[in-house]
């Protein structure tokens, strides 16, 4: 029994770390720019397909495809930043609609380019098991757990210790004051989109090596990322990791003790609970009543 629980917790934590990578980009852009990029899941998926193309056409080990993925996804997010910046009125609503349209284009684009077949890594090395006592995992899962923790740590350090990161947070909390301090909000926005793109590139490679991808995955990734953002609360990066881990562990415990058919439902119920009971999230600042 303890073996079952231990494995469930372990799997949940590993899965959660991958979820955190997926959610971070969305949380960052939303937390700082108040823009929800509805195409975020599709960007992660795009990175995954780049990893696939590199592996199948060029024979590259998936990790080596990350630079290419970063370039492609950052180009995509820069384009997104540019068109979102062109919106003149009703910014909140229209940026939602615009990114939604971009998401639709990316999903159908993926369908056109890569067809509907499922894809995943063929690398034997990444699929080998890693055994720690009674705990089992795939190499790719452990690898991206480490990557995830490192990236989150780096991001937190960047946000709190570097000038650029602090400029980002300043613009998020008070745009006008930040401008008075000499910060250009447009540039800060671009930076946040680029960082989100970087994170999405890692996340995409992670899902490609750990699981299976297909064009329809985009929207479910966005929903998952959004749920974690709600769990975490606005403006909290460590909160994203905690929320993601919580989600991952909830899912695997549900599978182990109840039925695996209820896994997705468990995550959703968790989301609803937080929404009803503590809408500012587990770690977020209190949102004023509307």
């Amino acid at each position, binding site marked *: 029994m303890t073996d079952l629980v231990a494995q469930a917790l372990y799997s949940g934590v590993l899965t959660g770390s991958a979820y955190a990578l997926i959610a971070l980009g969305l949380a960052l852009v*939303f937390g700082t720019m*108040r*823009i*929800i990029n*509805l195409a975020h899941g599709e960007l992660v998926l795009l990175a995954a397909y780049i990893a696939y193309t590199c592996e199948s056409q060029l024979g590259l080990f998936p990790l080596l495809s990350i630079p290419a993925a970063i370039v492609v996804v950052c180009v995509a997010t820069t384009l997104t930043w540019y*068109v979102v910046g*062109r*919106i*003149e*009125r*009703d910014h*909140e*609503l*229209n940026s*939602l*609609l*615009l990114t*939604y*349209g*971009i*998401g*639709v*284009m*990316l*999903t*159908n*684009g993926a*369908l*056109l380019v890569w067809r509907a077949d499922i894809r995943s890594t063929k690398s034997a090395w990444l699929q080998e098991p890693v055994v720690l006592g009674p705990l089992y995992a795939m190499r790719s899962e452990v690898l991206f757990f480490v990557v995830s923790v490192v990236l989150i740590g780096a991001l937190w350090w960047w946000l709190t210790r570097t000038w650029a990161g602090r400029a980002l947070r300043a613009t998020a909390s008070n745009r006008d004051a930040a401008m008075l301090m000499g910060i250009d909000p447009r540039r800060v926005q671009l930076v946040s989109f680029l960082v989100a793109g970087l994170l999405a590139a890692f996340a995409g490679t992670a899902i490609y090596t750990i699981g299976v991808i297909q064009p329809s995955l985009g*929207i*479910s990734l966005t*929903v998952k990322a*959004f*749920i974690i953002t*709600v769990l975490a609360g606005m403006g909290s990066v460590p909160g994203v990791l905690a929320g993601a881990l919580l989600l991952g562990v909830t899912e695997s415990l549900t599978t182990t003790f109840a039925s695996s*058919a*209820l896994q*997705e*439902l468990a995550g*959703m119920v968790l*989301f*609803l609970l937080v*929404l*009803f009971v503590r*809408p500012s999230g587990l770690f977020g600042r209190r*949102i004023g*009543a*509307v």
Partner: protein
Amino acid sequence: MRGRSLSALVVVLALYALVPVALGGNLYLMSMVVAALTIGGIALAWALLGNLGGLVSFGHAAFFGVGSYASAILVMKAGWPIAAGLLAGGVFAAVSAILMLPALRLRGPYFALAVLAYAHIFRIIATEWKSLTGGAGGIANIPRFPVVLGYDFSGKTGAYWIVLTIVVLFVLVYDRVRNSDYGLALRAMHDSEEATRVVGVNSTLLKAAMLFLSAFMTGVLGAFNAHYINFLEPDYAFSGLWTMLPIVAAIFGGYRTITGPVLGALVVYLVDQLVFKELMPIGHQIILGALLGAMILFAPAGMLPALLRRRGWRHA
């Protein structure tokens, strides 16, 4: 005002009489028109929520699916007549919106996505609650529309008339609400929520009312669709397309107007199925995504109003 109502009446009568005459024989085109009108109705409900409630939703598929299942189950398991089923579909969808009330506290984008998450949740519930909903396999052989006053409404023309009636009714309701005292308050709230609260308007109550109305309308259309297609399954009833197409349609047709969304739906859906699909059999929805993006950037008030303004017309 008189002249406009009269010409509107003429148009509506023409739609009832002439379309079946012109297209009745071609089942395929009639299917397209019925589907377009269904989308148009949802687009209208979506726009209503946006304009009068100030809320954008990315999950209207939730209401559509709940309405579909509610009507199918009540008619098949409890023996209700279909007309009652349609109403019940709307009511259940409105009731399901109660679950979304906590989300009203959230800022705009939060709410939009929260509704999307709800659509997922309802889909999962429909899949798991096998005894009630038939699970992943869905419900088949849902009863068709009955014979009323000697006319068999189970055919394409019957369905067309029913959905046209529903949409026309919704247009009238939207118009009445918009021009009523509440509508004035709602539109003021849309412009400045702070100001309205100062004057004493309970903005949350009004928003909730609009959410229920929008959900009700969408639920009725979902119920209609269930009896029209005679088949339901979770992936179909809660499909993202029931969210996406109405949004594109409403934006295209001009979501600030009342009839804009419906007209937008007719144009967008028909062009997508009859033209885009022929040109690009796979992935043709990419054009819709691009269209949405382009409209937001260049014609946020809608493309139809922009086009019509060129010719010197304005519409309701």
